[in-house]
């Protein structure tokens, strides 16, 4: 159980993000929730690739040559970039929405319905 603490933290982080997404009313807060979920997923991928007593996958003057799994790190890099791109696009959209709606309350940004 305590060995799996990183995974538990990932689960709790993702759940916190989902909680924010579902129960908070502010659009920027919702974006923060999405971002938290995303960080949780990144952490999840990195944690998956960890191996006990091993070093980073770079050939340097390090003591041992047992290395952690490099693939997930590459995936996480891609995922981080995607996260930033999404974040920027969504925040710009919120700025435009505020310009015309004068609110960021999610229950008032509902001109499209029915």
């Amino acid at each position: 159980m305590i060995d799996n603490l990183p995974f538990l933290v990932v689960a709790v982080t993702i759940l916190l993000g989902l909680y924010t997404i579902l129960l908070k009313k502010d659009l920027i807060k919702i974006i923060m929730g999405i971002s938290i979920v995303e960080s949780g997923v990144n952490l999840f991928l990195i944690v998956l690739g960890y191996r006990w007593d091993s070093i980073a996958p770079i050939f340097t003057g390090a003591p041992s040559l047992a290395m952690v799994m490099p693939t997930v790190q590459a995936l996480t890099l891609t995922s981080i970039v995607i996260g930033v791109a999404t974040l920027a696009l969504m925040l710009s959209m919120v700025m435009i929405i505020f310009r015309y709606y004068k609110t960021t309350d999610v229950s008032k940004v509902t001109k499209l319905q029915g």
Partner: protein
Amino acid sequence: MDIILDNLPGLLIAIPLLGAFLTPVLSRAGDNVRNVWVMVITTLSSLCGLLVASRVLEAGTIVYAFGVDTISNVIPLDSGGIPIRIIFTIDPINAFMLIIAAVVGFCITLYSISSMEKLSGKDGFFTLLFLLVASVYGMIATGDLFNFFVFLEISSLAGAALVAYRIDKGVATEAGFKYAALSTLGGMLFLVGVGLLYAQYNSLNMAVIADRMQLTGLDIMAFVLFFTALAMKCGAVPMHFWTPDSYTMAPSSVTAFLVVSSQASLYALFRVCFTLYGGQINPLTVGWVIIILGVLSMFIGVTMAIPQKDVKRLMAYHAVSQTGYMLLGVGVGLAALSSTCFSQGVGMMALKGGLFHIMNHALYKGLLFLTAGVIMYRCGTRNLNQLGGLGHNMKWTMIFFMIGALAIAGIPPFNGFASKLLIYESTFLFNPLIAVIAMVVSILTLASFVKVFHSMFMGPKLPEYQDVEEAPKPMLIAMGILAVLVILFGIFPQQVVDTLVTPAAFALVDYHGYISAVLGGA
């Protein structure tokens, strides 16, 4: 020449991406240069897609690994028999989807060259459009889960930015924001699923994972995450709310391609159910889940469509409803193939119907959205309550709209009927009640399009639309291509089913064939 033919799957992505990257630079040189460039790129990329598809249909599955020495060197000799690089696996069903994307992509680019003429920010528009096209090609062609995720994100972002293209009044931005937020969350949960599979099988290749699959609890978790993320992206009913919003607000040509993009997610959903978890997950349960989603989509989609006053919103709800047909067909196929009560024929027929409907839907829904775009382009409104009497001046548009409307309602000589017939018959053998619901939905579809047709084109000339002109030539050509295809597919359904749909259906079912095409032997 051989080199280019060998590298076609790579060029399939590279050409639209190169087009996208160079568009902003070239549009500094002027509008004409950009238009020529856009046409060249879209022609090349569509040609590329069609060539790949024809090669696949002739010679069988293409497996293309990025970055190896020679084309045949997919699996390194010293790797213990697993592919380590990203692999494109194009089998007949991918070829089928590629044809759809290529045809619709070409038409909408041609259309938007003239429909975007009045607006600002055209370089950004075409850049994003090319990125959307490239991402849909990538989603269809890839055989790697993480690579699929990357293309899914590109399509979400490009789609969201295009949906939010009309920035005045902020309504389009609202739709784009909803689309972006939902698809980002879906993508994130999809990535969790990829991580779960990676943790157990240490691979990202679909064939390897399918080969090693043991259906532990984690695999079921991953399955659920994949399933709902992709079902959300394709707009199945309890998660369909984003569909009408974004389809309404996007420029019409983009909407026509967003349909294809959500169908790429639908394809991925089928791929996950049939190939990745082929033979492992309980087909009856999953099949019934898909059927329930499909029936809900059909019914709620069409009933919500009828009272709409906005023509694009109405069509968007119809898109939801037609997605229901596809889900129904494939779900029935999945459930019937595994069940002992039915012969294989029922399942295959339903599967063929579902897949054929994907193609037909892309064609006629594309056509309908393009006609709606023409109406907006000429009349400046989408509100059905204000429109009327356009048939006097816009004859071609009226004919195209009629073709599309009759096709979507399943009136015989058009292609919608052919695929719906397959779905009705197989579903009736599977469960008569569902077939009845499907037919009722079809009738309601016809009813709602009669309403649209009447209120837009019929009636006397209204004073405010006294001198509305016919649509410009490129738009008419783009719609004409789609209309001709709709009629052709309706009159020669058997040829289409034989050459495209049946191989696709067999490729979808035959997951051993998929695995052995990648991993060799076995």
